[in-house]
C-alpha cells in the first residue's frame, strides 16, 4: 500500500513546474567540469561542452519522496536538445518538471520510471537547451 501511495503522489506532480533556479557560467567551474570529463578541446575554455548544463544547475534527479520505492536509483537515459551555444558569463535559468511517472514490470521485477524535463533559458530570454532525463527506481 505504501508503494502505491508513492507512485500516486509522484503522478500528482506530473506537469507541475518546479522552482526556477539561476546560475552564471563561471570560467572556473567550466574548467573543473571539462577536466572531470577529460575533454582537452580548447573550445571549452569559452563555450560549454554538450552535457555541461546538468552540472551548472543541479537537476532534481534524486526526488526524495521517490526513495521510498525500491532500493536504488539508476539513470535510464538523457536527451539533450541544443538551440544556442552557452558561453562563459551567460546567466542561465533552469525550470524543471516531472514529465511522466510510470511503472514497468520486466524480468528483474517492477521498476518505477520518472521522466524529468528541464528547460534552460539565457539572460536574453532565449531557450538555449532542453534536457530530458529518465530516472529509474529499482
Amino acid at each position, binding site marked *: 500500500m505504501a508503494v502505491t501511495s508513492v507512485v500516486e503522489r509522484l503522478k500528482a506532480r506530473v506537469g507541475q513546474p518546479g522552482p526556477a533556479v539561476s546560475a552564471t557560467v563561471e570560467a572556473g567551474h567550466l574548467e573543473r567540469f571539462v577536466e572531470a570529463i577529460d575533454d582537452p578541446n580548447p573550445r571549452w575554455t569559452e563555450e560549454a561542452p554538450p552535457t555541461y548544463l546538468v552540472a551548472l544547475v543541479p537537476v532534481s*534527479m534524486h526526488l526524495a519522496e521517490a526513495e521510498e520505492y525500491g532500493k536504488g536509483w539508476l539513470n535510464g537515459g538523457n536527451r539533450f536538445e541544443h538551440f544556442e551555444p552557452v558561453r562563459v558569463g551567460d546567466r542561465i535559468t533552469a525550470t524543471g518538471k516531472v514529465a511522466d511517472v510510470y511503472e514497468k514490470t520486466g524480468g528483474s521485477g517492477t521498476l518505477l520510471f520518472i521522466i524529468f524535463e528541464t528547460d534552460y533559458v539565457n539572460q536574453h530570454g532565449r531557450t538555449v537547451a532542453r534536457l530530458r532525463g529518465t530516472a529509474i527506481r529499482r
Partner: protein
Amino acid sequence: MTPKVGEEIPELVKHPTTRQLVQYAGAQGDFYEIHYDQDFARSVALPGVILHGLLKAAFLGQLITDWLGDEGTLKTFEVSYRGVDVPGKPYRCRGRVVKVEGKHVELEVWGEDPEGKRTTVGTATVELAG
C-alpha cells in the same frame, strides 16, 4: 566535410579512473554514493563503484564534437544506459552516419566495454556549417 551513410566516425577511447569519478561527482554535484563508495555500491547489488551515466554521455559528446570540429553543430543528442561500467577499464566510444539530408546528418553512437558490449547507445543529429 562530406559524411556518407554507413561511414564510421573516428573512435575515441577513454580511460576512466575512480579519481575521475570523484572529480566528476564534484563538478556535476552528483554525490550519489554508487560512484565513489565501494561498500555502498555493493550494498545495492552493483559490482562496485560505477561510472555516472552522464559521464559516459560526456564521452560520447566528445566523440561527436571531436569529429565535427568547427564544421558543424550538435543539435540533439540522446543516450540510453543499458549496462554499468566500472573504472579501470577502457571505454570505447564509436559512431556511424545513418542519414544525410543536405546539411542535416544523423548519427548512431555507442559506448563499448572491453568485451564489446554496448553499455550506452544513442543517436545524435548535427547540422553542418556552410
